[in-house]
């Protein structure tokens, strides 16, 4: 079975490690980006990724520009947030996100959403 590629964006490396380990057990190959520099580097190769999972906590508003870039690159992406209030949902959707998932996530539910997004894409 071919591994699907996921870009995991999160300021907290523990989060990207844990999420990466969980996805890798489910046939994903993951790359973590914990800084803008690393994210920008990976955005150059955006077409390699099947999905981007983005936790915006800790990033400044410039993160929404990166979100738009991902959207224009036609790669599906999800926003992860502890507190997905109306403002965050509005920014997320207007930046092209497929949806907002509340943290902590339940792995099976996240996998179901991610797989269906990739299949639809």
């Amino acid at each position, binding site marked *: 079975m071919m591994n699907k590629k996921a870009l995991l964006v*999160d300021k*907290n490396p*523990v*989060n990207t490690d*844990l*999420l990466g380990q*969980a996805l890798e057990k489910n046939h994903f190959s993951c790359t973590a980006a914990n800084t803008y520099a690393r994210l920008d580097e990976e955005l150059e190769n955006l077409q390699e990724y099947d999905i981007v999972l983005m*936790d915006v906590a800790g990033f400044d508003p410039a993160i929404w520009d990166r979100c738009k870039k991902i959207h224009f690159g036609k790669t599906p992406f999800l926003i*992860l947030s*502890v507190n997905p209030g109306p403002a965050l949902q509005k920014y997320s959707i207007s930046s092209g996100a497929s949806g907002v998932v509340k*943290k*902590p*996530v*339940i*792995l099976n539910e996240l996998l179901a959403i991610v797989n269906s997004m990739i299949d639809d894409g």
Partner: protein
Amino acid sequence: MKSQKISSGRPGLDEILIGGFVPHSTNLLRGGPGVGKTTFGLHFLIQGIQQKEKCLFITLGESVSNIKRNAAQLGLDIGGIEFLDLSPEPEFFSKVETYDIFTPAEVEREPTTHKIVEVIDKLKPARVFLDAITQFKFLAVDNFQFRKQALSFLHYLQTHKATVLFTTEASQLAPDDDLQFMADAVLNLEFSNHSRTLRVSKFRGSDYIQGFHGYRIMQGGIEVHPNLVPPLSMGKIATQQLRFGIPELDQQLHGGIESATINIITGHSGVGKTTLCLQLATQAAKDGFNSILYTFEEEAHMMASRCKTLKMKTGEALENKLLSIKKVEPLLYSADEFAHMVREDVKKENVSLVIIDSIAGYKISLHDTDIVKKMHALCKFLQNNGITVVLINEIDNITGDFKITDEGLSYLADNIIFIRFLELKGELTKAIGVLKKRTGSAESTMRRLWMESGGIHIGEPLTQLRGILRGIPEWTDNDKNDE
């Protein structure tokens, strides 16, 4: 056939549990912070090590280094105990190793379970102490899952032939009621009203001693003081008399007080109650009986010095170790601790006579608990073991109507001797009488009592006076006329 119990490592707790824990059972130790749950657990494991058993301490809160340091401070040798440290490491904080992407249940349950299973399979411990199982709550998505996981974990340990002691950290927000249902035994530890108490509320498959039992955490660990339960019958106890060695008083008592009786010597402050008791103990020593006097108030050396002034032979009894005077600071001891001390002393020193000076001092050590109940248990325990008990009671009111005790303890006494001040022809003097003698007869008249450098003296019966118990006696009519 009954299987042998598993010692808890504390003799007092084993006594409460009628021998200890049931083999391969799960036992819950619950209580707030600082009540000594971990120390109880260490005693449980140390006992196992002494019996050459494999023992495992699973810690989910306190780090192993902290546990070892605290054990060393208490003087506990925990060598041989295996530790499984599941507490958060310091790096967790310094490296900001926190996460919020998944719930702890999602991330940590599997590795934690794996570590426990690995150690249990490898070590095959006979005893497991788990501190605290409530930490597993954070590894479960909901209460139902937690209950299921905890129950299955405890069963897992049982099937591996381990006897388990586990703790909970219950709070109003996170009660541990569900765990109480799961456990075979529930031991509740509390710290209130200046004392620590232990109460067993559940013990499947065994009897136990009910009620609140005192315990103390000290250098060397925990000492548990079970409630005294007097034996139901006295068995065969030889009845003999203990004399005061003052012919007139022994005559008043028709020979003395019978052994294995409870006696109250009551009277005003300074009337000579303690000195009279010391005379009883001195004479008992001469007759070959061992005595202990517990003093809550006066220092032992002051008592000895007073006896010397009165030319009593108390010094000899003390030197020959036939009499011990023990000073007890009531603020430092609970009633259960005091009872435990008395019980150990009488066992060690083969004591025949125990004097408690006084009921008021003993009451201070009770910290508001029921004095009648505690005193009843202690006195009956001693009596049913063939020991004579003398309680010294101080009456507050110098004048007015006579009262035996302020505490309602007179029902307990087989014999009551009272001493009181009385005013006779403008002179303050003392009179002694026997108010009650359940085990035999006694003189019904009072006699004058005085103490001077020559010793304790008792006069002839005061047959010409009436109203002595009111403190203001009058001559009877016949004698008035004679006068």
